[in-house]
């Protein structure tokens, strides 16, 4: 019997309202230990997939399966536990400006119930993994963009997660720092971590030489495997007639919300997304 994929999206649709859709029927699989780039322009649906996988939102239709478990079966109470199995790297780093590098990582550890002794023991090792230990006592404002992103990755590693989701991790960085971040992600992948990266940086993706899923207007446009071979998308929605196309408001505007919706972290169930 064939092994189930680690991540599986089956005909997933996400619509925010009558006029804004995040995904229009996406099916894709990611194997355990794989490194996958979700590539596309703003509004193509790549960040929506990251949010789906981290249970920040739920699909309108279809099913998202992570490690053999349909996420639709995950209750709001179980979401924190699920998130501890996933490292999430946000595009804007999400660092606390009034805390030093080690405190930023330590704070996240304390928030998930680790003791001060555990923080003291483990933070240096985590910072070492992303090569930022030498700046442990610096404040985020004293760091370069690449260094800040490394701290954000370090924070995502506090649970030693088998899956790392990164939303535009190089979006705010220059090419040199982008390479640095991608190399860190490649190293983590080499250590066995499954990595899904949402990015619009095509050049960066090409240099990495990993599987790429090209997204466009809420659909998988094209897939390129690690060897550079192009593949057809796993699911293509049925073609609409011109009349249907004009009458379906989802076809009028396909976009992810441009703003960062407010999230109430006390209600983790189906809240929308940080950018």
């Amino acid at each position: 019997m064939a092994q189930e994929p680690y991540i599986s999206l089956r005909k997933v649709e996400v619509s925010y309202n009558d006029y804004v859709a995040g995904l229009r029927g996406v099916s894709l699989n990611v194997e355990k230990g794989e490194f996958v780039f979700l590539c596309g322009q703003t509004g193509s649906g790549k960040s929506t997939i990251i949010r789906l996988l981290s249970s920040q939102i739920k699909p309108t239709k279809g099913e998202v399966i992570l490690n053999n478990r349909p996420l639709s079966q995950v209750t709001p109470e179980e979401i924190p536990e699920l998130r501890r199995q996933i490292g999430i790297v946000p595009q804007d780093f999400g660092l606390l400006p009034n805390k030093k590098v080690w405190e930023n990582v330590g704070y996240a550890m304390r928030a998930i119930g680790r003791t001060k002794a555990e923080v003291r023991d483990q933070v240096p090792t985590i910072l070492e993994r992303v090569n930022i230990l030498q700046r442990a006592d610096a404040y985020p404002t004293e760091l370069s963009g690449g260094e800040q992103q490394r701290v954000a990755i370090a924070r995502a590693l506090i649970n030693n997660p088998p899956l790392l989701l990164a939303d535009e991790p190089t979006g705010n960085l220059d090419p040199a720092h982008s390479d640095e971040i991608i190399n860190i992600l490649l190293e983590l992948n080499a250590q066995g971590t499954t990595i899904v990266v949402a990015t619009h940086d095509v050049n960066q993706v090409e240099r990495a030489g990993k599987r790429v899923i090209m997204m466009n207007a809420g659909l998988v446009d094209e897939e390129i495997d690690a060897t550079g071979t192009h593949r057809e998308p796993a699911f293509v929605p049925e073609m609409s007639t011109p009349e249907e196309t004009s009458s379906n408001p989802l076809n009028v505007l396909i976009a992810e919300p441009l703003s960062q919706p407010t999230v109430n972290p006390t209600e983790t169930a189906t809240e929308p997304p940080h950018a």
Partner: protein
Amino acid sequence: MLDRIEFLLSEAIISLRRNRGMTFASIVASALALVIVGGFTLTYVGLSKYVNEQVSKFEMKVFARQDATPDQVTNLGNQIKKLEGVNGVSFKSKAEVWAEWKKEEPAITAGLELDNPMPDTYTVTFKNLEKVNEVKGLVSNMPEVAPNDGVQLSGEVQDFLQEVMASLRWLGLALGIVTLITGGILIYNTIRLTMNSRRKELRIMELVGAAKSTVRIPLLIEGITHGVLGALCATLILWIGHGVILKVMSGIPFSKVAPFPLFATMFSLALAGAIYGYICSNLAIRENPKEATPR
């Protein structure tokens, strides 16, 4: 465990310090609300105690008709005894009353030896002052009772006290509700502001999978702290206010002010403040923005 408590408390302290202006405003509003509620409650309880103390002293005189037979007079006493709210009935014959009056007012009674104008008299005491008017009405209509002024109360002050107590109850309730709502809105807003000012921390907690309780408890502690600090301020204000009243009343003869129940007040208000703060902050945390939620 201690480590976790320390973390949650430190988070709550950070929240309290983050919005000092709003924290101060919500503590003041809570204090005001609790001063009103606590002040009215204390006044009501004090007055109620005073009124109840007066019950034993309160009497109603019932005069029998001049032409009533001894059997009718006895029957009148029995009927009065059966009425609800009546504690006891004592009887004095017209001769006894006349003798007492002659002793008290010899100048007025001189020359009236042959014609005793006094009626047979019952003195009625009560268990409950609220029943006085009802009893008075029933007794007045009894045929054995003298038709005009056959029933006399020892003082109308009781009615006045009853009215004051009823007014206090309603006024306290109305003002208390208004100020409690105002204070509640302030605590609610303060918690919302805290959530907004700490959104980065809260977001990090969310991303790394912090338990819901880790996110909520510091915010609840913050709300409870507002309520409890407000309660302590309210206790202080009431204590000072009581001292002022005591000083003023000491100049008025026969006035009596009960001692201030400091610990009972502080404990009751702190408990009320804690519950109040908890409810308000819990409402603020549960309020959930619905922007761009997928359907």
